[in-house]
């Protein structure tokens, strides 16, 4: 039942509504609204009950193993939530003076330093609001760099075919053309093709490493050489940083600019879609273009670097300073784990992924890159199953829900057919991994014995298989409009 169907006109919560004695007679009538909006009139209990019950219809990290590849669904420590939400932090207005926020700004400054160390970059700005905005920021800086040199021929961004969709979409938003670089059968970038592709039109290359194929790009230094040699810059999509923290620094891989997904690597909660935080790090070359505001220390006081401090900055990405509450959670996370913890994250994430890959392989499941080490994630495929029994990766994914596991990422990256990108993360126990391995293996058996059963999964979720075509065709996007 929808909340609207519980609404009863005229029901107001006296605890939540101010008295009805305000004087607004100075606002001219013709500027006023004449009918109330379709917001439900329900009691506080109805709201609480409705949304508590709805929440129970979700899978989530707090309730289920959720090995979505590329998403780093790991435990979100409750301490991060509690201490980011201390009343003084919550009540500070973004436009209030920096003197009223030295405690908050100290956290932000420290976080910048921590991220610099982890990435090996020269400077960090926390302002981008998610990974994609981090990408936008980074590529905008690349453009600003070339523009500053008067190098206006560079109109192309190179992107491996395995790249996440935000990479090409970002290049477009920055006014670039996108050129795809193929991947070799072993999962590394096709270096020859790259050499062919680079040239005076090359503004830069966007790369994820470990790549979205769940392998580490072994020729990264050659890749860097090729791109830099052609005058292009190297962009690091940090979505997979979880795999290498404390082991390898993107700066050492010669990247010029990087974004991080703090909602992945730094375990800020995904919140059913967001918010995230996509800080960017740059090397010396791009330093002048860093987006504002970022925190600087100035005469013993923290303050924001703004337009006057950074005349060549690409500017601002949002009205305020970034998803401060998310950044606070990431900061707390970093302090809890510390330098040894960070390294352990990478090690155990990698251990768990390799363990799962080997066990699944041992159980006869096909791997996309069977000879490679997994990083923090790996790709399995059911293309044979699809061919032989007509059961697709999507069917298997739905059946996993019945077994109490969220499905891995499916059909991404695009170049591996019927694939699962599986990322267990470091916070899951061996028992949980074993449970998933067994479930996945069992489902493939089920699929061979009774393909229809698997094709009609799931059975135990609050709804059965949903009709997505109907959703797009009939477009019922708000209640009451149909």
């Amino acid at each position, binding site marked *: 039942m929808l909340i*609207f169907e519980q609404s009863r006109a005229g029901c*107001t*919560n006296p605890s*939540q509504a*101010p008295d*009805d004695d*305000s004087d607004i007679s100075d*606002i*001219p009538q*013709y*500027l006023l609204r004449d009918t109330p909006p379709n*917001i439900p*009139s*329900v009691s506080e209990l109805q709201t609480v009950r409705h949304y*508590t019950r709805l*929440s129970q*219809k979700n899978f989530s990290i707090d*309730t289920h193993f*959720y090995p979505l590849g590329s998403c780093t669904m790991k435990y979100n420590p409750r301490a991060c*939530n509690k*201490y980011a*939400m*201390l009343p003084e*932090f919550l009540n*500070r207005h*973004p436009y209030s003076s920096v003197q009223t926020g030295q*405690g908050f700004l100290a*956290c932000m400054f420290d976080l910048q330093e921590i991220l610099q160390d982890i990435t090996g970059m020269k400077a960090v700005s926390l302002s981008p609001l998610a990974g*994609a*905005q981090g990408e936008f920021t980074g590529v905008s800086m690349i453009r600003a760099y070339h523009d500053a040199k008067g190098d206006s021929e560079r109109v192309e961004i190179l992107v491996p075919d395995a790249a*996440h969709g935000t990479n090409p979409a970002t290049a477009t*938003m920055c*006014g670039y053309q996108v050129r795809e670089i193929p991947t070799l059968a072993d999962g590394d970038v096709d270096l020859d093709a790259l050499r062919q592709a680079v040239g005076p039109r090359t503004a830069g290359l966007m790369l994820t490493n470990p790549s979205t194929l769940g392998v580490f790009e072994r020729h990264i230094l050659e890749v860097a050489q090729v791109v830099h040699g052609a005058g292009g810059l190297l962009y690091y999509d940090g979505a997979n940083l979880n795999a290498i923290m404390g*082991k390898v620094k993107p700066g050492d891989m010669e990247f010029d600019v990087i974004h991080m*997904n703090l909602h992945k690597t730094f375990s800020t909660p*995904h*919140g*059913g*879609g*967001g918010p995230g935080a996509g800080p960017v790090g740059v090397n010396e070359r791009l330093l002048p273009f860093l987006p504002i505001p970022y925190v600087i220390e100035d005469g013993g006081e923290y303050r924001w670097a703004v337009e006057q401090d950074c005349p060549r900055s690409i500017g*601002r990405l*949002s*009205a305020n300073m970034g998803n*401060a509450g998310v950044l606070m959670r990431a900061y707390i996370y970093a*302090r*809890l*784990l*510390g330098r040894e913890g960070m390294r352990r994250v990478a090690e155990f994430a990698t251990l768990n992924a390799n363990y799962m890959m080997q066990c699944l392989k*041992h159980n006869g499941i096909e791997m996309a890159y069977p000879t490679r080490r997994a990083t923090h994630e790996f790709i399995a495929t059911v293309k044979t199953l699809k061919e032989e029994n007509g059961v697709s990766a999507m069917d298997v994914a739905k059946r996993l829900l019945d077994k109490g596991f*969220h*499905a891995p990422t499916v059909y*991404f990256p695009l170049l591996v057919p019927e694939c699962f990108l599986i990322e267990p993360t470091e916070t899951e126990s061996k028992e949980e991994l074993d449970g998933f391995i067994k479930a996945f293996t069992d489902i493939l058996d089920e699929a061979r014995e009774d393909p229809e059963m698997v094709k009609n999964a799931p059975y135990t979720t609050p709804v059965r298989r*949903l*009709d*997505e075509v109907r*959703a797009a065709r*009939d477009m*019922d*996007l708000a209640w009451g*409009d149909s």
Partner: protein
Amino acid sequence: MLDAIGVSDIDQLFSEIPAELQSGRLTNVPPGIPEMELARVMTARSQQDGRYINFIGGGVYEHHIPAAVWELTTRGEFYTAYTPYQAEASQGTLQLVYEFQTMMASLLALDISNASLYEGASALAEAILAAVRVKKKARTVLIPRAVNPVYRKVVETIVRNQNIKLVEIPFSATEGTTEVSALRDYEGDAVAAVVVPQPNYFGLLEDVDTLTDSAHELDALAIGLVNPTAMALLKPPGNWGSDGADIAVGEGQPLGIPLSSGGPYMGFMCCKSKYVRQIPGRIVGRTRDDQGNDGFTLTLQAREQHIRRSKATSNICTNQGLMVVAATLYMSLLGPEGLRRVAARCHHNTNILVEKLTAIDGVKRCFEHPFFHDVVIQLDQPVADVMRAIEAQGISAGIDLSSEYPELGNALLTCATESRTVDEIENYATHLERILSRRSLDPPCAEKVAQ
């Protein structure tokens, strides 16, 4: 586990990484601390920041937030879920977003809402990009100078590389509202969109009907930029002029989201149905399962980066989902009547504030024009100094407009939401009066030296 993998230590798992790169040792990350110590650090820092009585608005407002909002929003099932890619395992989030879309579309009197963008300013940029996609060839966009200057900067950063011309429309020096007549200068130009703020940055109420009609006369889309609280009282964008605004966006923070030094907030975007394929961001639709029961799923994904890649409407992927949970709970707890009363009380309180402040010698309103819940006050002394002195009394006075709008002189943007009491307002006035009179009698040292 190492045995199952066939290695003898964890380092071997990293063997494919070139050895020369494997020196990522962290030096500046401090050692880890247990939660107990962390609690001490964070509590100390929060207490360092203290608590100020807040009269700052400018697009972000201190509203009362019912306790239920965040007690439910932080339930693990909402807080730790991902974007609902597996619809059957995410009906909680999906139904909630569908309900949010319904509430927002109705609040703005438009057909369709998306499931959030990052925040207000970037939402405005996205609306402009959508308008340009709709209008294809037209690449001029008119933005009033009375739009929040930071929003204008963000728009500039975001659309800069896409060959779009942003033109500033002046405001009337006497009324403080956008010069409708100035739009006429662009007749014949290829104008893709006109941004129509309500209220504008100064809190002043624009003639939205005429602006919207004028935009349409230019064959441009009208993009409403609105405060959601105001929408409980004011005419919503869908009803502006004869055809209504085409797209409306704004900052969702006032809907149950704490100030939090600037985020996370959320941008909202609504539009007429015919533009649904041009707007960015997630959209949830209601559909059926294979037993014929209602269910919810992400839909129209062909607009999005993971399907359309370089042809997508935007690169946005992660949005501000959890803030949508908070906003939905907030709206549901207040109901239409509660929201209306909050809006009315904000306005009422700001009127009291105006009355108390302008009773002081040397203080006046900048513009005598109908407004909603933000107001520009003119002082007879530099705003920054006065603000500093008031802050020492635990009061955040507002926003100093003098560098962004030098033409307004010593102008201070201020407001009093429903959270402010009459006592607090009077206290503000008392301090302001004392500070202004003391300073005019006896300017501080620096000024004396300068004299």
